[in-house]
């Protein structure tokens, strides 16, 4: 469990202290980027989204309550940014050179990874969000719930359904039952 941020830091940042805001933001940038990469399947666009989300976070900082964990709050902004970007683009971005290429079927592990990656990418954005937050960014259910503005029970149920969609025959973890 990561340590909760100092409530005083949020107050200082909200008072206009640039250094305090950066202290809050720094540890969130990399996980936010990893989150956006999965949501968009486009690292370059993910970088754009994180930068845009950071500016929005600064503008909306007054909405962050003292003592509240900024991580789910920031991830919520990133998720919204990803959603609006996907909604706003009717074209596909030029494929990047380092997008995963063809898979050697002989390599079973690579094939399994590719299979799972495709299954996650085929999920709808809401399901992909909770899967990514919980299983890729390792957020506890409570933080996934805070990010997606749902109850923990709703998140648990959504994870259950998403896993089932990915793998109809998958054994569902006890924690989600």
């Amino acid at each position, binding site marked *: 469990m990561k340590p909760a941020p100092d409530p005083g830091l949020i107050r200082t940042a909200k008072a206009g202290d640039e250094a305090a805001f*950066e202290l809050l933001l720094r540890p969130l*940038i990399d996980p936010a980027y990893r989150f956006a990469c*999965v949501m968009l399947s486009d690292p370059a666009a993910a970088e754009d989204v994180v*930068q845009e989300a950071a500016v929005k976070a600064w503008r909306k900082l007054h909405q962050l309550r003292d003592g509240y964990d900024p991580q789910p709050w920031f991830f919520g902004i990133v998720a919204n940014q990803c959603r609006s970007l996907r909604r706003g683009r009717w074209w596909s971005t030029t494929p990047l050179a380092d997008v995963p290429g063809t898979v050697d079927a002989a390599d079973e592990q690579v094939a399994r990874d590719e299979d799972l990656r495709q299954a996650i990418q085929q999920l709808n954005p809401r399901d992909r969000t909770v899967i990514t937050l919980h*299983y890729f960014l390792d957020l506890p259910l409570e933080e996934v719930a805070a990010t997606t503005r749902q109850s923990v029970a709703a998140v648990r149920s959504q994870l259950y359904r998403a896993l089932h969609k990915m793998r109809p025959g998958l054994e569902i973890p006890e924690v989600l039952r």
Partner: protein
Amino acid sequence: MKDNESIRSAVHHALDGMVRPAPELEAKTLQRVRAARRTVSRGGLRRWSQAAGVLAVAGVVAVVGIAIHQATLQRDRQGQAPLASPRFVAPTSVAKGPGAAIAWLDNLTGVDANGHIVGRIQTQTALRSADGNALYGLADQKVEIYSATTGTLQRTITREGSGDLAAVTADGRYLAILGGSPPAVEMIDIAAGRSAAYTRLNSTFPTGGLGFVLVSADGSRVVAVENFWQKPELVVLRFDGSALHVEGQAVDGEQGHSLPTCDGMAPQNAVGGLPERLLADGNTMVNFCPGDGMVSWVDLSRLTITAQVRVQEENPFWLSPVFSTGSMLYVHEPGTRRITSVDLLRRAIVRSTVVNASTALNPWQWLADKLFPPALAGGIPRSAALSPDGTVLYVTAVFGEGIGVAAIDVHDFHVLGHWKLNGGGSLWLSGDGQTVYVTNNGGDRLSILHLATGSVVTVTPTAPVYDFLPLPN
């Protein structure tokens, strides 16, 4: 029972490969926030939400914000376009509004400099306002006014007619509309939000052919032309603010009148519309015909041609005329890379030169030219645009496998800079002069070139894009 941790491990394994290392992201993100903070601080505002309440200041902040956004985002999206003349500095302007920085494609979709859609509109015919901030949609008996920044409908003005040929005055106040049945000219007072005048033309005035309407800078004179293909007919009207009065009417070849014609497919296919201009004296109309390269001057008092010059051309289906806000006409032929400038006051060709900007990017261009004569079927791209101050002409040209955008000094046709990117179709310059949007020849690729940095965002439309809604000049 599948263990939650084993799923987590599998997901990590599968998704780790989707994350490209971004070692500079933290620094860039913090820098971006600092830049945004400084921008707002300079305006004396702590929050953007507060700034939104102060429209004038918000406009300035938005322009600066857009510039910062452009400077920090798109480089990461695709990188630099090779620039032959790195010292080139693009002329810029703040004369137009922030909406003029948004490109509106021919499918009525607005795209910002980062390649993101800002909005879409649905209307039969659309044109842009003089300041670039609005789009006018012509529907039956109404004019819809949309925000060019968001595409949202802002106002609707009721009109009497249903014409679909329109021109906006340079001061942005009036919209002159020609067409409908019976044929009529109508003046819309955009500022007042009402139809200011409506007058039916002679019942013999043709409709439905190749026509256009021109309006003087202050709206006091309106010129309606129909049957431009052959035996054109022209009506000149004066507008006094509340009524339109017919001053003159003529048919080519009758009663001693002579009017320019433009036969052939070229003008019909011209995506940019017919190339014509009413000069500042309000009494001279200039027409360019891509079909034969003829530039004609018409005295609107005498209703007759007073001068003509012919621009050298090789392919009437691929010419792009650009009028300056002053008194120049530039004709660009991308296939041959020939540019011709015509002084509309002196009524003479000033310069006609093949510009070799693109050959520097392809040493075998001369061979490609010999083997593959330039041709394009089905439409005429708008391949050139003029900087806001009228000193630089941006053109896109095809050369073998390489396609680029070049910045040309209009005075001596010296190449100021050129960039290799996937152009070759239509080209549009943002109203602030900072961004060039260019489609490729097939219309399935849109490249957005940021002149200050040389960075390019390339996007692939799901449906072909051939042209942009032009900004009036």
